[in-house]
């Protein structure tokens, strides 16, 4: 096989950090190279170099044996490089077709030919196996659908080198299958793909080779058929990681109910939800994208207010009409989209941590106390091992895992009785995941009732005590995490069989 892309001894320095040092990449024609590394390992910098957004300081890039200098976006494009971003780069105010064909719309007499645009787009989507109406506004799509559009947009220029950054983080199993079909098709056409993902199982399904980076340095490249999950993880974290999930040495009291829902219903969002969460219990909620799992917890938190049903906290009936009520009841909610709903990205670590309980940093004169805020922030930076130069760092500059730790700190500060975690480890690397799991276990041990929503089955199975399976806006069944497995849960969801609780 011939080599499509070669990157030799790439070095990139930013003020204060060496993002990449001596990194080598070799991408073969018609193959998938997985790029693996913890957040902050330098994957995104490498991508940005290939995208022409920030050129390397040292090192050589060769495409089909020819040296190229990629110093702007257009050079990358003319060399057939296309990047599919994890941060959705779509414009919400435009239709699917307008986004996919942005800046290359078919024209007639200098005017955009919308009819042709939509027809072309329709045919193109069909050829990828995506069934969507190209005239729909992107703002009307679910995150998963948007991600599919993003993929279609990245492939429309017929690129030779395709870089996919966590393309499946928002996709359900069915859509992931669709993506893998597309990738296999691309491989057969002789295209080359760099695939970035934290989901190990995926790599073994789709990748041919894996290159591991750690702290900006090149570690190794291996054939996927010659390696194992354990080996890859130890290359990534630089030590042997015996377990992905920390052990839990704690049993909760079965009669100590902290949160109880009775027939909670909101039309079109969730129906007849009943559950009982005990002190110190981790209750998993598993369901596919759009199953209603997020809506249920938003109902508890007063954001998608119930039409009917009752909520009890420590056996007392409560009315939760707003997030403020929920917080006053001792409920904390770590949302699914930490960047949109969880953090003020332009504020510092300290400001974010103190934001939920600002009264805790007010001094005796009624003013915000810098000292108290600093102490508070440093306390959590240490406790959760948040990797940040200092408490004044802008949150936007932290990696995903560390951002999530900031969100957890902020909610822990209200001393919650009930903690709702919606996809707490999405897009986070193994090392940070482990620390977050450890923190969750600690919290449950201290008596906090935890609801854990996840679309990663192994996560729910390993972390939770009980698992609620959610489908079609209803609770389908409740299972013991110890006594069930992935297959059983998937049968419940795919057969949609209903079980009396």
């Amino acid at each position, binding site marked *: 096989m011939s080599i499509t892309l070669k990157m030799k001894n790439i070095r990139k320095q930013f003020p204060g950090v060496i993002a990449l040092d001596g990194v080598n990449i070799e991408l073969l024609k018609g193959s998938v190279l997985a790029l693996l590394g913890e957040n902050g390992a330098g994957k995104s910098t490498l991508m940005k170099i290939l*995208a022409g957004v920030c050129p390397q300081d040292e090192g050589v890039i060769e495409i089909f044996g020819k040296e190229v200098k990629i110093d702007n*976006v257009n050079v990358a494009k003319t060399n057939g490089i296309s990047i599919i971003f994890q941060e959705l780069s779509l414009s*919400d*105010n*435009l239709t699917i077709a307008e986004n996919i064909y*942005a800046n290359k719309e078919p024209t007639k007499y200098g005017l955009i030919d919308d009819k042709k645009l939509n027809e072309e787009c329709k045919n193109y989507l069909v050829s990828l196996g995506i069934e969507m109406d190209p005239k729909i*506004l992107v703002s009307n799509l679910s995150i998963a659908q948007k991600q599919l559009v993003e993929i279609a947009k990245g492939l429309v220029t017929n690129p030779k080198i395709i870089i996919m950054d966590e393309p499946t983080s928002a996709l359900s199993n069915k859509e992931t299958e669709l993506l893998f079909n597309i990738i296999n098709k691309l491989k057969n056409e002789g295209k080359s793909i760099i695939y970035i993902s934290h989901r190990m199982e995926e790599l073994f399904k789709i990748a041919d080779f894996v290159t591991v980076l750690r702290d900006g340095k090149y570690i190794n490249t291996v054939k996927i058929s010659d390696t194992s999950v354990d080996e890859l993880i130890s290359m990534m974290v630089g030590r042997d990681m015996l377990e992905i999930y920390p052990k839990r040495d704690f049993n909760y009291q079965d009669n100590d109910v902290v949160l109880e829902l009775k027939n909670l219903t909101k039309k079109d969002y969730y129906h007849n939800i009943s559950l009982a969460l005990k002190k110190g219990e981790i209750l998993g909620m598993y369901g596919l994208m759009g199953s209603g799992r997020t809506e249920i917890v938003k109902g508890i938190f007063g954001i998608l207010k119930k039409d009917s049903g009752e909520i009890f906290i420590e056996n007392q009936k409560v009315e939760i009409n707003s997030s403020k009520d929920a917080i006053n009841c001792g409920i904390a909610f770590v949302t699914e989209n930490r960047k949109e709903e969880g953090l003020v990205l332009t504020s510092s670590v300290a400001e974010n941590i103190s934001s939920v309980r600002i009264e805790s940093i007010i001094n005796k004169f009624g003013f915000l106390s810098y000292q108290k805020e600093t102490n508070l922030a440093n306390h959590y930076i240490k406790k959760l091992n948040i990797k940040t130069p200092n408490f004044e760092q802008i949150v936007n500059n932290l990696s995903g895992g560390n951002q999530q730790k900031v969100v957890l700190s902020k909610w822990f500060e209200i001393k919650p009785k009930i903690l709702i975690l919606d996809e707490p480890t999405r897009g986070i690397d193994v090392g940070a995941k482990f620390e977050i799991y450890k923190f969750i276990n600690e919290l449950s041990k201290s008596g906090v009732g935890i609801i854990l929503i996840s679309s990663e089955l192994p996560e729910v199975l390993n972390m939770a005590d009980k698992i609620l399976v959610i489908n079609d806006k209803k609770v389908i069944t409740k299972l013991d995490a110890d006594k069930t497995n992935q297959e059983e849960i998937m049968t419940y969801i795919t057969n949609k069989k209903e079980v009396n609780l």
Partner: protein
Amino acid sequence: MINNKILKNYGGALLALSVLVVLFSILSPYFFNVDNLLTILSQVSIIAIMAFGMTYVLMLGQTDLSVGAIAALSSLVLGVMLNLKVPTLLAILIAILSGLGAGLINGILGIKLNAPGFIITVATVGIFRGLVYTITDSKPVVIEDTFILALGNSKLFNLIPYTVIVMLVLMHLAQIVLAKTRFGRNAKMMGGNKVAAEYVGINTKSIYLKVFMISGIMAAISGILLASRLYSSQPNIAQGYELDAIASAVLGGTSLSGGYGSVIGTLLGSIVMGVINNGMNLIRLPYYYQQIVKGIIILIAVYLDIKNKKSILSKGGK
């Protein structure tokens, strides 16, 4: 199908317009006749043309507060050129170029200083207006050119004011460029997601410049028509017109935060404003009450518009 689309896009403005027309037709016998309706169109044309340019600026998520000052500047340039015996059409061209130049300055400053158009134009509004006062020494320049005077004060077939024709031609042009050209589409994308626009290779700086230049040109044309109406160039004209232009565009469904814009909607918006002004004058509502009513009606229309947009966005969402 088409009717449906119009209702969806301009429902708020159309509803407000019909309510107002019915209301004033009942309240005043002079309101609902062809002459008066054409008068309204002619009255709104100057603000509307300015608002067409503003639509582009708002769609980018920007604001241009200097359009009133640019109108005054171009009307002065026109007056001075005519006094220097420059041929009429050339004088008009130079006046329009002065608006374009002013827009270019706004654009370059915005890019070089990397600051929002809002604050840049807060600064340039003072500079442009100050320039006008300095050159004219605060005195009006009389215009006697028959062509120019006809433009703002005569009617085609003695029925349709030329200003209305100019406005309609510009509306079509602006709408086609906005909805049907790659430039317009790219500007819309930039207003919705600037980073995404940059990644597909759109030159966002060039679009930013062009949009402020378009705004400058439209403001200049307004200034020329205004000078014609007043038979003179006056340094203090078009004060506060920028706010009316913004209100017209927003009433017509253009989003203040960028990403959505429609020139046709803007025309509807300015007609709503014109009908309110005209109707209240006909029923002899005192001026101060007029201000209050106008404010309230804008609030209602904006509310309807936001509600309308929400329902469009949520449809098929979940």
